[in-house]
C-alpha cells in the first residue's frame, strides 16, 4: 500500500494534503462544469417561471396601494378607534384632503377606489368623484367640505373599511377566497349564504378531479394491461394510438367533444336513432359536469395509461404463471399477484391525472357551462376580467397548497420512491 497517514491519523495524498481536501478539489471542477451546463436553463426557469409565480403569490397578501396613495390619512387614522361610533376628527379629513389632491394629480385615486371596492361596493365611484371635486375645495375646515363633496365620507362604515384595509399586508384576500370577510368592526365572519362561491367551487373542483381520476383509472388499466401483454411490435403501434391525442391541439380535441356531445350532436343523434331516448328528452351531455368529466377523462387518459404501462411492462410474466402453477385460479392470480405489483403505476398515474385535473382551465371553460367549471376558471376571471389579482393569487395559493398537501399525503401512503413515470 502506498497511502500515507498524516499526523492526526487522517489519510493524506502524496503531496501531504489531506485526502478529503484533495478529493473535494478534484471534484470541484466537475461540479462547476455541471453547474455551467445547467445554468442557462436554470436562469430561464428562474426568470420566466419562478419569479413571476413568486410575484403572483405575493400579491395574495400585498396591500400597499392604500397606504401608498393615502399616506397621511393612514397615519392620521391610527389615533381613531374604528370600534367606536364617532367619525374621525378634522385632522383626518385634512390629511385626506391633502392625499386626495396629490392622488388626483397623479391619477392614482381610482386605483385605491378599485382596491377598496373589492371589500365594499361604492368605493370606486366615491374615489372617482372625490378626486374630481377635491380640487374645488379651497379652504378648511375640511370635514364638512369632504362630506359635502361625497356624502359617503360622513359614513362610519367608509372609515372602518379604510382603517381595516390600510396595512401593507392583508389576509383579506384569503378570507375572501374561503367565503369569509373582515367585518367592519375588524372581526372575521362568513359571507352571507348567497354570496358564498369559492368553498363550493373548491369542493366541486376536488370532486370532479377525483371522478376524472377514477374514470381514467377504470378505462386506462385494461388498456395498459393489454399493451403490456402484447408483443413489443404490436404494443408500440397501440402506444402510438395512445399518444396520438398529444399531436392535436387541446382546443381541437375539446371542440371535437362539443360537436359530439351537444344537444344536436353525434351522440345524441345516435341515441335518438337507436330509440334509446326520445328526440325531446335528449340528455344534456355538455355545458354541465357530465361534459367536463367526459372531455377531461379523454384528454387526461394518456397520463394514466403511460405510467401504468411502464410499470406493467416490468412485471415478469412468470409472476402470474407462478401463482397459477401454485394452484390459483387465473383471476385470483391476477388480483393477488399482478394487481399489487401495479400499485406504484396506479399511484403515479392517479396523482399525475389528479394534479393536472385540479388545475385544468380550458376544457371546463369550453364544455363546463356554469355547473362544470373549476376553480381555475374563477382565477382566470379575476385575472382577466375583474382584475382582482389579489384574490386570484389567494385562490392560486390555496390550490397550490391543496396539491402539495395531497402530494405529501401520497408520499406518506405510497411513497414517492415507489412512483414510476416511465
Amino acid at each position, binding site marked *: 500500500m502506498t497511502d500515507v497517514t498524516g499526523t492526526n491519523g487522517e489519510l493524506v495524498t502524496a503531496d501531504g494534503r489531506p485526502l478529503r481536501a484533495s478529493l473535494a478539489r478534484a471534484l470541484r471542477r466537475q461540479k462547476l462544469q455541471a453547474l455551467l451546463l445547467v445554468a442557462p436553463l436554470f436562469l430561464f426557469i428562474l426568470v420566466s417561471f419562478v419569479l413571476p409565480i413568486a410575484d403572483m403569490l405575493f400579491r395574495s397578501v400585498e396591500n400597499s396601494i392604500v397606504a401608498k396613495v393615502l399616506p397621511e390619512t393612514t397615519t392620521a387614522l391610527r389615533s381613531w378607534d374604528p370600534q367606536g361610533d364617532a367619525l374621525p376628527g378634522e385632522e383626518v379629513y385634512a390629511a385626506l384632503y391633502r392625499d386626495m389632491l396629490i392622488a388626483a394629480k397623479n391619477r392614482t385615486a381610482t386605483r385605491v377606489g378599485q382596491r377598496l371596492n373589492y371589500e365594499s361596493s361604492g368605493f370606486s365611484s366615491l374615489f372617482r368623484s372625490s378626486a374630481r371635486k377635491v380640487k374645488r375645495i379651497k379652504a378648511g375646515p375640511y370635514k364638512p367640505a369632504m362630506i359635502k363633496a361625497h356624502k359617503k365620507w360622513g359614513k362610519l362604515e367608509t372609515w372602518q373599511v379604510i382603517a381595516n384595509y390600510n396595512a401593507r399586508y392583508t389576509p383579506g384576500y384569503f378570507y375572501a377566497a374561503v367565503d369569509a370577510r373582515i367585518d367592519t368592526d375588524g372581526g372575521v365572519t362568513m359571507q352571507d349564504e348567497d354570496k358564498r362561491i369559492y368553498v363550493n367551487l373548491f369542493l366541486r373542483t376536488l370532486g370532479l378531479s377525483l371522478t376524472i381520476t377514477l374514470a381514467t383509472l377504470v378505462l386506462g388499466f385494461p388498456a395498459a394491461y393489454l399493451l403490456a401483454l402484447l408483443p413489443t411490435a404490436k404494443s408500440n403501434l397501440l402506444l402510438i394510438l395512445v399518444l396520438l391525442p398529444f399531436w392535436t391541439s387541446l382546443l381541437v380535441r375539446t371542440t371535437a367533444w362539443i360537436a359530439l356531445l351537444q344537444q344536436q350532436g353525434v351522440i345524441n343523434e345516435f341515441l335518438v336513432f337507436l330509440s334509446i331516448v326520445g328526440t325531446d328528452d335528449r340528455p344534456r351531455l355538455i355545458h354541465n359536469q357530465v361534459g367536463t368529466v367526459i372531455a377531461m377523462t379523454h384528454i387526461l387518459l394518456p397520463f394514466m395509461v403511460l405510467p401504468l404501462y411502464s410499470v406493467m411492462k416490468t412485471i415478469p410474466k*412468470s409472476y402470474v*404463471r407462478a*401463482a*397459477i*402453477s401454485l394452484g*390459483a385460479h387465473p383471476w385470483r392470480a391476477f388480483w393477488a399477484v399482478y394487481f399489487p*405489483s401495479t400499485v406504484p403505476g396506479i399511484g403515479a398515474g392517479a396523482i399525475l391525472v389528479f394534479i393536472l385535473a385540479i388545475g385544468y382551465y380550458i376544457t371546463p371553460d369550453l364544455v363546463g357551462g356554469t355547473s362544470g367549471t373549476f376553480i381555475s376558471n374563477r382565477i382566470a376571471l379575476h385575472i382577466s376580467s375583474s382584475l382582482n389579482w389579489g384574490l386570484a393569487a389567494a385562490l392560486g395559493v390555496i390550490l397550490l397548497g391543496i396539491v402539495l398537501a395531497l402530494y405529501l399525503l401520497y408520499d406518506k401512503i405510497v411513497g414517492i420512491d415507489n412512483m414510476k413515470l416511465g
Partner: protein
Amino acid sequence: MPGGARDALPDMVDEGSDVAETSSDGVAVGGAGGANDNAFVRFAEVQKSYDGISLVVKSLNLDIAKGEFLTMLGPSGSGKTTCLMMLAGFEPATYGEIYLDGQPINNVPPHKRDIGMVFQNYALFPHMTVAENLAFPLNVRRMGKAEVQERVQRALDMVQLGAFGGRRPAQLSGGQQQRVAVARALVFDPKLVLMDEPLGALDKQLREQMQYEIKHIHENLEVTVVYVTHDQSEALTMSNRIAVFNDGVIQQLAPPADLYERPDNSFVAQFIGENNKLTGTLAARNGTGCEVTLDTGESVKALAVNTGAVGERTMLSLRPERVMVDPGEGQCDTRVPGRVEELIYLGDHIRTRISVCGRDDFIVKVPNSTEHAGLAPGNDVALGWRLEDCRALDMPANE
C-alpha cells in the same frame, strides 16, 4: 442451420435410439407410445409450433418414471422451456397428447394440474413476505390456519431458512431466494416439480451447493423432477436420466454415464464433455466394429455406432482420457503418429495438444506420471486407442 440439416435430424435420431436401446442398460427410452404403461409423465407424439411455420418441438416421445430426476439439456433455443411450459399447461401442444399419472392433461387448466414450478428468475411475489409466499399455494387450497403455519415452517426448515419467514424476497440473497422458490414449489406436495434453469443466476460455488441441496431434497421427498438446464455438468451430477435436446428433437435419452461414455450421435458426443473428432469414410463393416479410412489416408478401427453404408462419410469420436500416449504392444487396436504442440499443466494430469492425422486440435489427457515426463512441444509421439473407445458416428451437417 441450413434446411438440409434440419430435415436430416429426425431420421438420425431414429437410428440413434435403436442403438441406445441395446447399449444403455435396459433404461426405457422414448420410443413409440405404449412401451411403458406405468410412466408417470408421458409425451406422446407431441409437436409444438408458435408461428405455424416452423416446429419448435418435433414429434416428442418421452416417458418419465415416478420419482425420477430427469433433466432436459440442450443449447439455447432447442425447445426445453417449451416442453416444460406444455407440461405445466402454459403453452398448448400443437399436436399430440401429454399424460400425467395416466390421465391426459391437454385440457386440464394449469392451476388444476398440481405441478410445482421453479422459475429461472424465482418469481417470488415481491409484495409478500417469504412466509406469505410459501403460504400462498396452501391458502389457495383452503387449508386450515394451523396447518398452513406448520407446513410453511417445515418447508422453511427444509431449505434452512427457518428464521427468514418475515422477510421480503428483496431482502434475501440470490441463493436464499432460490431456496424459497424451491420450498414454495414443494410446500403443497405436488405430484411433479418442474425447474427451468433454477440455478442460472447463481455464481459457480453457490450453484454447486444448490445442486447438492436440490438433489438431496429430491431423494428425501421422492418427488418426480423435470429439470431444465444448459449446463452439462449440472445435468451430469444431478440427474437419473438426461434428455439431450437439439433443434426440437431429443438426440439421446440416457443416464449420465451412458451419455458420456456411449454417445449415440455426433451432436451428443460434441455437446457432452470434451471430444476429439476425426473424419473419414467408412471402408468396411464387420459386426459391431468397422474400419474407417481417414481423410489423410490412415486406416482406423472403430465401433460402428451410427454409420451409413460403406463409402459414406463418418465422424470418429474419442474422449481425451481414452487416448494413450506411446502405448505398449497389444494395448490398443489403432496406432497413429503425432507431434506434441502444446502442454498445459493441470496438476494431476497434463492437457496435451497434439497434431494427428491432419488435425492440430487433438487433445489428450496425459496422467502426470514419470513415464510421460519427457513430453515436450515438438516431440514426436505415438498415439493409440482401443476399438471400443473410438465411436464411428454420423457426420455433423456442418463438416
